[in-house]
């Protein structure tokens, strides 16, 4: 188990997390996140002392599991499709247009 961080997150860590989170950050943002995130994570440290070795983590809080349904395809109407595509920033030939990935 990784030990919970005790010190300020580094600038490189924040940059790495920002790319994972897909959020563009300025140098100023990075400094602010270093401070904000570290103080919230510090607050979490109070949980370190609680012994949870034999505790099973929560899945669904009231214990509901395996809510099954038939794997049936239900066709959407043309209007539904139009309404969905109307929200797309870029659309071509009835499909979402995306920039090249490579």
């Amino acid at each position, binding site marked *: 188990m990784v030990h919970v961080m005790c010190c300020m997150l580094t600038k490189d860590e924040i940059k790495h997390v920002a790319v994972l989170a897909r959020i563009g*950050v300025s140098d100023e943002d990075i400094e602010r996140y270093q401070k904000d995130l570290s103080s919230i994570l510090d607050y979490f440290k109070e949980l370190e002392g609680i012994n949870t070795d034999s505790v099973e983590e929560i899945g669904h809080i009231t214990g509901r599991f395996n809510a099954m349904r038939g794997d049936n395809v239900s066709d959407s109407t043309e209007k539904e499709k139009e309404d969905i595509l109307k929200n797309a920033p870029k659309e071509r030939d009835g499909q979402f247009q995306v920039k090249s990935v490579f």
Partner: protein
Amino acid sequence: MIRELHEKLVKGEITSVELTEKYFDVIEKKNGELNAFLTLTKEEALEQAQFVDEKIKKGEKIDLIAGIPMALKDNMCMDGVRTTASSKILDNYIAPYDATVVRILKEKGAVILGKTNLDEFAMGSSTENSAYGVTRNPIDSERVAGGSSGGSAAAVAADMAVYTLGSDTGGSIRQPASFCGIVGLKPTYGRVSRHGLLAMASSLDQIGPFATSVEDAAIIFSRIACEDKKDATCAPSAEKNFEDYLNGDIKGKRIGVVKGHLDGLDEKIKKRFAEAVEKFESLGAEVKEIVLPHSKYSLSTYYIIMPCEVSSNLARLDGIRYGLSVDDQKDSKMGNLLETYLDTRRVGFGDEVKRRIMLGTYALSAGYYDAYYKKAQKVRALIRKDFEEAFKQVDFIFSPTAPEVAFKIGEKTTDPLKMYLSDIYTISANMAGVPAISFPIGTVKEDGKELPIGGQLMAAWFDEEGMLNAAHTFETN
């Protein structure tokens, strides 16, 4: 209020169109100052009102809520209507379908007046995080209405709607209800379908009503609580009209007050709370002290679980399928997909949302999952176990809803941790998944204004019936 309006409608003393127009007049008069509504759906509302009026004229039976004006927190989808979650990233988003709760309300004949303001994506305790400006408290406009469902609470308190729906992830229905002097209900997790609710933290989110009485809240809750194949976490339907079980009798009911819960609480609030405890005793309830050993960890556990789920849920806002898309990477040689993501989310999200996404992404990133999310879900299991033990000894748990009255606008915006403490009494109900209700228990005078204080009752899983009756008994005596 709903029953009286229903009687008037059925007897022909007022039409739904007249009632709806009256509410739009109030909105027009007050919304400029309060900023409770973001979008009005006047055309749809009047059409529905007319439809109900015709039914009444023909002598057809109508539901209790038919023809009665209400409003939705703007994080619930309504077909063909702008749904922003108070975020710039969804400024131009037109929902292509109805949320399950909206579908149910429409089928029952509810008149939807519009969409109400909230903290961006329901993240906040004051509605100050809205991209469309703060909602002001109708009792004192220098103060916040609470959050995140501040618009829904203010709308009911200012009589701009008969009732509203909100969503509650850590207290977002109960705390604003407390600040605005009205009733707010967070049902048991899974009672109400979340389909069409813009997700914040899916293991905690729950939709519930704001109303001016416990009975009205029960009426709304009965209608929206049902199983939904579009939300697999939903519990089986209760198929019960909870408003029919409010008998005003709580003799012999056991109410727990948590040991240490009131330490450090403002003296004036403590005094009102003590009076409320005495009132419950005078109504025949037995009040006793209980312990919830792990509840003190609720807030720190919440601030790991919630951001993790936020970071996952809000990944869908990528500028490709809907919402804002920033696509002007002129300086970039590449102009690639990653830059569209980075720029869209940098510009589109507000500070608090970004802070939580960053925190959640960090806590879920490789190597940290066990130390944070998994650890938090284990502590959560201990918190739930405390409640299981407590509900063997008592029927309900009673506390203040918030450690304070409505605070002044701007008072806490610079310190996120201080703002988070506003939810100290409400968060454990979400952590444990139990139902909870906030209702007015008195006022405190500040700056010459009588500011309301809410009391919160929590009950065991799925015992909304007993909890609503206890709150109703308090309210009507």
